[in-house]
């Protein structure tokens, strides 16, 4: 999960990484109060998990608490690339002499850790990587051995940051590495890392992504996560043990296994439909889970038809069929459901479905046939509505 900037900085501070003094505010009054306690001249920063907030007007300088209040009023509630700003970070403003880039990440292809540093900071690093790859110093770190001083030197000298920033940068890098490992992070990106007018090097921004699989090692992460709002439908699905992601379309999708569900979305799209969601019931799903999955999907009034695509391995198709029939008996199912079953006990499952007395419950023999059928039904529903 991506943390908010203020959360990432709080964690980095625990690892003695220098970050600007700041406080988080949820309304303009709190922003004014925070500015007062920080000495007046502050930066007001929108807390959203998306890049490019500066360009979108989500970062503003305020010379006084009153101005901070006004700026916070403008930024709070703002929509930045689909993210609503609920909090602002108020930080003491300082002189910036230079901006650098630094990051540490899990390198999937090399199966180790990768450190990156550049004297070109404060800009989109992907663009720098395209236009001037030489400007980025890279160093691979063996996860078993951890960081050595030479790794930090290769980054600092290789990135050609100003000589006067070297000593402090060399001291910060091992601390960031310690934070990376200690937090089970998959990414720590400091963009920019700055050299201040006073000659200090600090992390002016921080993007920290933590590995959800390691939550059990970090009791405090549950609280951090509670600050992240998840849509009602997603919350409901999670409660029921379903892996659900809302999408834009009107064809509901249920499948078992992430790869098969992704593939199902693709074939529905190729057949001219727009998937309404990604929903993976996982391995070994029983009747109740299937019934719940249908309930979650149809709780969205915009869904016009549903495709259930199951390839039974540990999952038994007869139980899947029972769950679907249960949903039909239990709920007022207004939308047609196309079901394709293959694998373990598929025959038995298909028989159960064909014996069920529901007109809206339709069977399909193949994955592609099912996709065509469910898309035709969603189009027919639109024709009727329109």
């Amino acid at each position: 999960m991506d943390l908010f900037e203020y959360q990432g900085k709080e964690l980095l501070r625990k690892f003695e990484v220098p970050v600007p003094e700041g406080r988080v505010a949820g309304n303009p009054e709190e922003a004014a109060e925070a500015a007062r306690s920080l000495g007046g001249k502050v930066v007001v920063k929108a807390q959203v998990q998306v890049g490019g907030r500066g360009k979108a007007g989500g970062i503003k300088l305020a010379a006084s608490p009153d101005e901070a209040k006004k700026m916070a009023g403008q930024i709070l509630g703002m929509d930045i690339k689909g993210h609503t700003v609920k909090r602002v970070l108020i930080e003491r403003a300082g002189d910036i002499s230079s901006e650098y880039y630094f990051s540490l990440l899990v390198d999937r292809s090399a199966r180790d850790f990768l450190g990156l540093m550049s004297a070109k900071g404060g800009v989109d690093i992907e663009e720098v990587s395209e236009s001037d790859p030489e400007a980025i110093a890279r160093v691979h770190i063996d996860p078993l051995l951890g960081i050595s001083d030479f790794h930090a030197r290769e980054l600092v000298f290789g990135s050609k940051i100003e000589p006067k920033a070297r000593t402090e940068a060399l001291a910060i890098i091992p601390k960031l590495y310690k934070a990376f490992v200690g937090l089970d992070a998959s990414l720590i990106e400091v963009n920019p890392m700055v050299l201040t007018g006073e000659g200090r090097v600090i992390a002016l921004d921080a993007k920290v992504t933590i590995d959800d699989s390691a939550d059990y090692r970090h009791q405090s992460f549950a609280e951090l996560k509670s600050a992240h709002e998840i849509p009602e439908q997603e919350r409901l699905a999670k409660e029921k043990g379903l892996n659900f992601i809302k999408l834009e379309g009107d064809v509901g999708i249920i499948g078992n296994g992430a790869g098969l569900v992704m593939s199902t979305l693709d074939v529905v799209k190729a057949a001219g439909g727009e998937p309404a969601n990604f929903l993976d019931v996982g391995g070994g799903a029983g009747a109740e889970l299937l019934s719940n999955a249908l309930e979650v999907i149809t709780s969205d009034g915009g869904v016009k038809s549903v495709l259930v695509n199951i390839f039974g391995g540990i999952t038994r198709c007869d139980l899947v069929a029972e769950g679907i029939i249960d949903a039909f008996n239990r709920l007022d199912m207004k939308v047609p459901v196309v079901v394709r079953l293959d694998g373990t006990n598929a025959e038995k499952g298909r028989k159960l479905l064909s014996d069920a007395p529901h007109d809206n419950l339709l069977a399909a023999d193949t994955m592609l046939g099912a996709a065509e059928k469910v898309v035709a039904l969603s189009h027919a529903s639109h024709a009727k509505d329109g």
Partner: protein
Amino acid sequence: MSILVDNDTKLVVQGLTGREGSFHGNRNKEYGTNLVAGVTPGKGGTDVDGTPIFDTVDEAVRATGANTSMVFVPPRFAADAILESHDSGIDVIVAITEGVPAMDMARTVSHLRCGVNGTTLIGPNCPGVISPGKANVGIIPGEICEPGPIGLVSRSGTLTYQIVHELSQRDFGQSTCVGIGGDPIPGSNFIDLFEEFEADPETELVVMVGEIGGDAEERAAEWAKDNMDTPIVAYIAGLTAPPGKRMGHAGAIVSGSKGTAKAKIEALEAAGIRVGKNPTEVAEIVAELRAG
């Protein structure tokens, strides 16, 4: 021949006494896999439906000659279980467990790659390995597979079954099907398996099943261009996946402009590898290549 598992496989299951472990361990045994032992600390001396349980993998190896292990323990114990098998001289470790922290895998894989014991790790978060008619180590349903000349390597589980099913229906049997798993740091990647398949005289064509996230497919395409004579047919899931959303698998995420299905398909096609638009088309391309 086949790769990784066959008639010489002697399987030890780490976590055989658990609900999932015993269910799948016994299913593998029914398929014909030589299941020789289970390991659960503290339960040594007991048995699961006739299979002896040991306290440590080392004991199991010494008593039974086990050369392959399947890891079915909870995520927080998985890295330890893998390292234990490695230390006990196991040749092939198949880790089914989902949800192992990336930090644990980074360290474990780094250690295994030092190569002292020459261990191959498949997974974690994978459906396992099956050489049809010989041995099944994992949760892939044996009944959908048929022996034959197609090697299959995939980052997914059920999607693999779908494609195997499409192949079997057209009478294209498989030498070995390998699920390498959907995690960011897998023990083995596409290139590792390409190398194995290229060296296997029985594998005449390889099907690769990739998905969004990372650049393993791009790198495999590049590698295959220079190193593979065996033809490859590919499929990539997730063309419609929105950026920034983790699509079920820990590793299935488009980050910025990186890891998209489109980029992967382009890289594969640039390397002369044909890519099916859906699982059915993959089997159709295989049919075309086999006929030609």
